[in-house]
């Protein structure tokens, strides 16, 4: 019996004991397979609005993700066309809380360890920079090398210079600071921080990071040399901005066109109040004991500038929060007003209105409310500009604060002699290598013993021991449990173990649309049209998956025949790919190979490929949730008030 099977039984037994306690619930999610890298299906756990799941990640690791359920649902059931099976399990509230906390702690802890890996890389980079600087007797005028400091770009331009002139709002903030802490406070603090930056030295010890990657346990310290330097540098720059009343860089803010962004009287008052509270907070922030107040201060001052400018112009001005390296919606799609581009623009409008109303109607809107509105204005403004000028539109994941990292030339650097730097460079390299190996060892993905199924149960399990989790090869001694690591088998066992589990499903977009079509149109006509990718009205050929001809998910008797034709199509694409290889670097050849490969299971009645969509027209959420036993019914069967609104 595998470890997680035992854990499942333990959980079931505990549920029996605590049967009379008030119930709450969590949900096991099983996502059917699709072609690509999801051929084995997927397994996840839902708690409240969050889905926790383990995914293949960088360095061959398996990382715990936390995703909003609606996003998860859209990605898998709509874009990836994969049916989602859900088993809701009632548990006592304390047990649910304990499970929630285990996932939450594991998520935070894993993030911290990967963040430590970034810090170790930062150490190596900083030492390399210091070594390079020590080779130069004088820095070149145009030398822009250095560590990027978050928030510096709000006030410092490409040549590390602040804009000319003085900012009235930052001057006012400086006056508040002076009256709170005295006239020499700023200069004294800047001096002290610059000295601290010069006195910084790389940590010669090797012990902590090397032994650091203890699975799901906190590290003794994740605050390394490069972190300390970046924090000091951000504080120095923030205080310099205050001292000089440096105005914001013009391109750091976004001033959308007039019209919809004009301020109402109520909004103007909210902004005035917010700016007043922000000033008070920023003065306190300067004296904070937290080590990383530099970026929040830079961001706060930049926001103060945009808020004051909003009041002056009587319309919203916000910080530019669009990341530098983003993907773009193509100019062609924008010009043609493709449906998904129009829908995204409409969604951006709605989001802007919601964020705006929230800011205006909340008594004392806080930082998240401004961050939300800031992001919504940015999003809508880039769409508006794209539509007005037929330009490509940047698309990016939401949820990042304005960052604007920049290197600033005249920052003090740690004053470390060359011999120490050379030794530190070796140490940093060794530490990074050792930590990387530990991360790979502790979080490395393994098909059978450390995958999305095994880790869900390892995290749930009462008996879970961090030291042995992930090393379960020896536990597989029961032939009946050999395949438990496969998502569909794990899900079936969950249902078998929890007799009272409430099973439901969210069908894939294509299968749900087919059900609707069969109900409304001639069956044969629908079949003829929708069985293949050439005439399907649901699926559009796209570049994200290899070419194929027939859908085989809903064609069990004909699957091998369709599979053979799909295989032939794959070979055809490969043949064309050979001819095009000199021009497309073998892209089509590889695609054909993949297409052929995913046709092979169809020859033996196994369907993996469901068809991936780039966009699915329809109303939110496009796919309904319904009881599992009613799958395939023509009627829409909402389960409960909560679920029908999922």
């Amino acid at each position, binding site marked *: 019996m595998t470890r997680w099977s035992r854990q499942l039984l333990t959980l079931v037994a505990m549920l029996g004991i605590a049967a009379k306690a008030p119930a709450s619930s969590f949900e096991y999610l099983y996502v059917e397979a699709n072609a*690509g*890298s*999801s051929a*084995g299906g997927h397994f996840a756990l839902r708690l409240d609005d969050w889905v926790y799941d383990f*995914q293949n990640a960088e360095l061959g690791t*398996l990382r715990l993700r936390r995703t*909003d359920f*609606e996003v998860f649902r*859209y*990605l898998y059931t709509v874009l*990836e066309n994969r049916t989602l099976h859900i088993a809701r399990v009632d548990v006592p509230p304390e047990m649910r809380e304990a499970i929630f*906390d285990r996932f939450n*702690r594991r998520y*935070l*802890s894993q993030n*911290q360890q990967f963040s430590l890996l970034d810090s170790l890389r930062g150490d190596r980079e900083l030492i390399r920079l210091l070594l390079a600087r020590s080779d130069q007797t004088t820095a070149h005028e145009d030398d822009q090398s250095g560590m990027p400091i978050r928030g510096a770009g709000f006030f410092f331009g490409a040549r590390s210079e602040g804009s000319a002139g003085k900012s009235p709002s930052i001057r006012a903030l400086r006056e508040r600071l002076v009256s709170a802490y005295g006239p020499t406070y700023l200069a004294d603090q800047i001096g002290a921080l610059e000295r601290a930056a010069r006195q910084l030295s790389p940590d010669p010890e090797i012990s902590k990071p090397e032994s650091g990657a203890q699975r799901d*346990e*906190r590290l*003794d310290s*994740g*605050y390394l040399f490069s972190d*300390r330097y970046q924090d000091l540098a951000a504080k120095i720059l923030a205080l310099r901005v205050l001292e000089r009343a440096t105005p914001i860089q013009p391109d750091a803010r976004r001033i959308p066109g007039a019209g919809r962004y004009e301020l109402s009287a109520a909004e103007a008052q909210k902004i005035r109040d917010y700016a007043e509270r922000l000033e008070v907070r920023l003065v*306190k922030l300067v004296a904070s004991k937290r*080590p*990383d107040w530099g970026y*929040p201060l830079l961001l*706060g001052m930049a926001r103060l500038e945009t808020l004051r400018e909003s009041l002056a112009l009587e319309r919203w001005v916000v910080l530019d929060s669009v990341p530098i390296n983003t993907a773009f919606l193509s100019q062609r799609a924008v010009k043609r007003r493709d449906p998904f581009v129009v*829908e*995204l623009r409409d969604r*951006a409008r709605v989001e802007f209105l*919601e*964020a705006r109303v*929230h800011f205006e109607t909340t*008594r004392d809107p*806080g930082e*998240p409310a401004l*961050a*939300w509105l800031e992001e*919504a204005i940015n999003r809508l403004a880039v769409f508006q500009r794209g539509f007005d000028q037929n330009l490509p539109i940047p*698309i*990016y*994941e*939401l*949820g990042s*604060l304005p960052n604007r990292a920049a290197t600033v030339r005249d920052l003090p650097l740690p004053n470390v002699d060359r011999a120490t730097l050379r030794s530190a460079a070796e140490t940093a390299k060794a530490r990074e290598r050792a930590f990387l190996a530990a991360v790979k060892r502790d979080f490395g993905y393994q*098909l059978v013993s450390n995958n*999305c199924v095994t880790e869900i149960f390892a995290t749930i399990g009462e008996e879970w021991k961090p030291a042995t989790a992930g090393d379960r090869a020896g536990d597989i001694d029961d032939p009946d449990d050999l395949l438990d690591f*496969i*998502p569909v088998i794990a899900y079936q066992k969950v249902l078998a173990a929890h007799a009272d589990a409430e099973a439901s499903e969210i069908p894939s977009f294509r299968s749900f649309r087919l059900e609707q079509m069969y109900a409304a149109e001639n069956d044969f006509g629908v079949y003829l049209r929708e069985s293949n990718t050439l005439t399907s009205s649901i699926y559009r050929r796209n570049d994200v998956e290899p070419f194929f001809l027939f859908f085989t998910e809903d064609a069990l008797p004909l699957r091998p025949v369709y599979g053979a034709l799909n295989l032939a199509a794959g070979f055809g694409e490969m043949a064309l790919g050979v001819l095009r290889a000199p021009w497309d670097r073998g892209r089509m050849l590889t695609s054909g*190979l993949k297409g*052929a*490969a*995913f046709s*092979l*299971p169809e020859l033996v009645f196994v369907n993996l490929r469901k068809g*991936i969509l*780039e*966009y699915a027209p329809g109303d*939110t959420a*496009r796919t309904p949730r319904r009881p599992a036993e009613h799958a395939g019914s023509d009627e829409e069967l909402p389960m409960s008030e909560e679920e029908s609104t999922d």
Partner: protein
Amino acid sequence: MIARIALGLFIGVALGLATGCSKSSTTQASFGSSSDSSSSPFRSSSKSSSSGDETDQKEEDDQKEEKPETAFERDVRNHTVGFARTAGEPDLDSFQRGLGAIAEVHGITDWEQFDATYVAIGRGLADSDLDVRSAQQLAVALSSEDYDHLALVRSGFESRHAR
């Protein structure tokens, strides 16, 4: 020859299966353009009044009722548990920097201004199974020796213990 190609393709499928559980890169690419996922993660932080001092006017009457823990508070509590359980000398800088990174996910950079942060720290200390003396020492350190913050940490600690 055909047998070799077939074998290669089967290996391809096997490799595809071997990467099960992962989300395809195509979906990653589509993420930004998926309309149902185009809502800001900051929305929920904004609307959960207890993640900050902001209060919706219509919720004013419900102030006295105990509110469910927000995602931000849960993160802070569990971050504190992890920190308190760490062996060795506590590194406050590391704790606070980690807290800063967690807060940013919720749209917050100035987490010190929120009472909820300190209450959640207190709850985390209560959950960390420290003896009272150790918990007190950490409470003082984590509240930056600020009396008001300490009172909030204490209230969080006691509310958790009272359950």
